[in-house]
């Protein structure tokens, strides 16, 4: 079986064995039902053990899983009438970010999101979901349009990071991201951001300032990739696993750090095992968020957004620490 992550190998092997036994018992006279049900019990137990005890590194692997649903997979399932719109009007169309208009439960919305490819060919076209400045500028253009026509914005985050390239620097990667952060802060429509895979640093941040920030259970959000952190901190990118453990990058870590509004659970084995089910869970979160945010006036919305960001961080005063030490 392809795309099996190392930590879930025992589960997959057992599942295959059960399937094999079922096939045998179907083909022959031998009654294996007792053995099968025993193994099925064991499988359930094993699944609980394995998937309830995922390490941060396991989740990193899951967030990067080749079969993990992408922005377009969710758009297809969450919205109707999706019409993709292209181009930043300055330079080109960056396919590492997709966006457009659609209906959510019959009401107009604007959708943006990072888009990885499903295969090598598509990945090259979409630059592995790593945007250039024009991607951020396209997203901003669509979000400004959303504001003009009073549509809420749903943003899906799934990128290793903004592309570190020569052309990206020449065209102002920093400015493009910075501008989005500031402009999104001031948009007078609700913005709901959902991290569905990797939330890689500034490149992820560039479309994720809003009123609500959720993460799928097995997604990550970090200041730097575990490999990058390991290279910087210990001069050895092979220590990525260790970095993943210490950098606090999982959905539950971010919930604890009070950076996100909630974790959207995944089925055992990850979102790709049940895309429909996952989309349904995301739908519930968008629905309840919109219900809440639609109650607010424009000024209340902006005030709450400011308060949300104002409190993020961890500081203390010199005086307080001195006291506790003495």
């Amino acid at each position, binding site marked *: 079986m392809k795309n099996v992550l190392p930590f879930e190998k025992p589960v997959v092997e057992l599942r295959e064995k059960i399937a094999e036994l079922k096939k045998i018992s179907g083909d022959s006279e031998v009654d294996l039902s007792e053995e099968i049900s025993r193994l099925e019990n064991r499988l359930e137990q094993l699944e609980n053990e394995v998937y309830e005890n995922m390490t941060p590194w396991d989740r990193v692997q899951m967030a990067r899983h080749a079969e993990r649903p992408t922005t377009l997979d969710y758009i297809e399932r969450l919205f109707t009438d999706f019409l993709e719109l292209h181009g930043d009007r300055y330079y080109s169309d960056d396919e590492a970010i997709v966006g457009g208009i659609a209906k959510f439960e019959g009401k107009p919305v604007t959708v943006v999101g990072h888009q990885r490819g499903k295969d090598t060919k598509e990945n090259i076209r979409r630059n592995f979901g790593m945007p250039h400045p024009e991607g951020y500028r396209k997203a901003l253009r669509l979000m400004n349009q959303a504001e003009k026509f009073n549509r809420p914005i749903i943003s899906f985050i799934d990128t290793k990071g*903004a*592309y*570190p*390239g*020569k052309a*990206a*620097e*020449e*065209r*102002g*990667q*920093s*400015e493009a*991201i*910075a*501008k989005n*952060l*500031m*402009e999104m*802060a*001031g948009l007078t429509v609700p913005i709901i951001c959902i991290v569905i895979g990797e939330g890689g*640093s*500034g490149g992820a*941040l*560039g479309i*994720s*300032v809003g009123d609500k920030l959720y993460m799928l259970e097995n997604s990550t*959000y*970090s*200041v*730097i990739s575990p490999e990058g*952190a390991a290279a*910087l*901190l210990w001069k050895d990118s092979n220590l990525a696993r260790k970095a993943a453990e*210490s*950098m*606090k*990058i999982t959905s539950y*870590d*971010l919930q604890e*750090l009070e*950076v996100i509004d909630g974790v959207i659970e995944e089925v055992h084995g990850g979102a790709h095992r049940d895309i429909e089910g996952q989309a349904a869970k995301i739908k519930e979160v968008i629905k309840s968020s919109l219900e809440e945010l639609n109650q607010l006036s424009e000024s209340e919305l*902006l005030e709450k*957004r*400011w308060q949300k*960001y*104002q409190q*993020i*961080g*961890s*500081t*203390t*005063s*010199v*005086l307080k*620490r*001195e*006291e506790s030490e*003495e």
Partner: protein
Amino acid sequence: MLRDIFSKKRKYATISKQAEREDVPEGLMVKCPSCRKIYYRKELEKNKLVCPNCDHHHTMSAKERIDSLMDEGTFEEWDVQLTSDNPLEFPDYIEKVEKDQRKTGMNEAVMTGKGNINGFETAIAVMDSRFRMGSMGSVVGEKITRAIETAREEQLPIIIFTASGGARMQEGVLSLMQMSKTSVALERFSRSGGLFISYMTHPTTGGVSASFASLGDFNFAEPKALIGFAGRRIIEQTIREKLPDDFQTAEFLYNHGQLDRVVHRHEMKSTLTTVLDIHQSGGDAS
């Protein structure tokens, strides 16, 4: 009573003359890292730490920057008591921060406050690259956010001098979120009509470059300052080609339309005065 505890233990002091003296390179002479010429420290200081031979802009501490810019006796510092927590429980992190506190005499990598420039009152935040490479963690984000907010409340302009390697690793995603936090504060400030001048100095990279540094109503930079999003080495590894020597310098950005001006340090005060003057009536110099 709290003040007593504070002053007894010198190691946390934020504005300590002693700590500052320690940071001045030993001896009377300084060698220019660019042209290798050797100068009297005093001579260099008189020239605003610009090499008289090759024009290299030496690193300025936050205090030196403020002293060279603000009218004497007008600077009032804010939030000197804030210090880093260790949210990720990173080994040795607090020790490193404390070491830099002793080295620089600052509580964190940015000094904030208000004062006058040729009679024009302004809020100011100056980053200091000697403190954890000027990296932005929770305290830097919080101090800058508070400075922006105070400027908004007191209807002052704000000038931010950046010098930063980017987001601080040891505070993980909380450092990343300071990019959003400062940007949200700037949006509020901008909406209220506030004037923000961003002044980039060497180096301004990563998360700081991709947030407030790029968001000025005016974006200035010092000559030759390194400014960019991704690190040079990472880009070279990604695109597998050598980058030009001037890549990601202030001049490179200027040529690509990303800066209003590259401003020589000798023109710093007069340039800022002009901008403040045009946006504000009632300064002493008017």
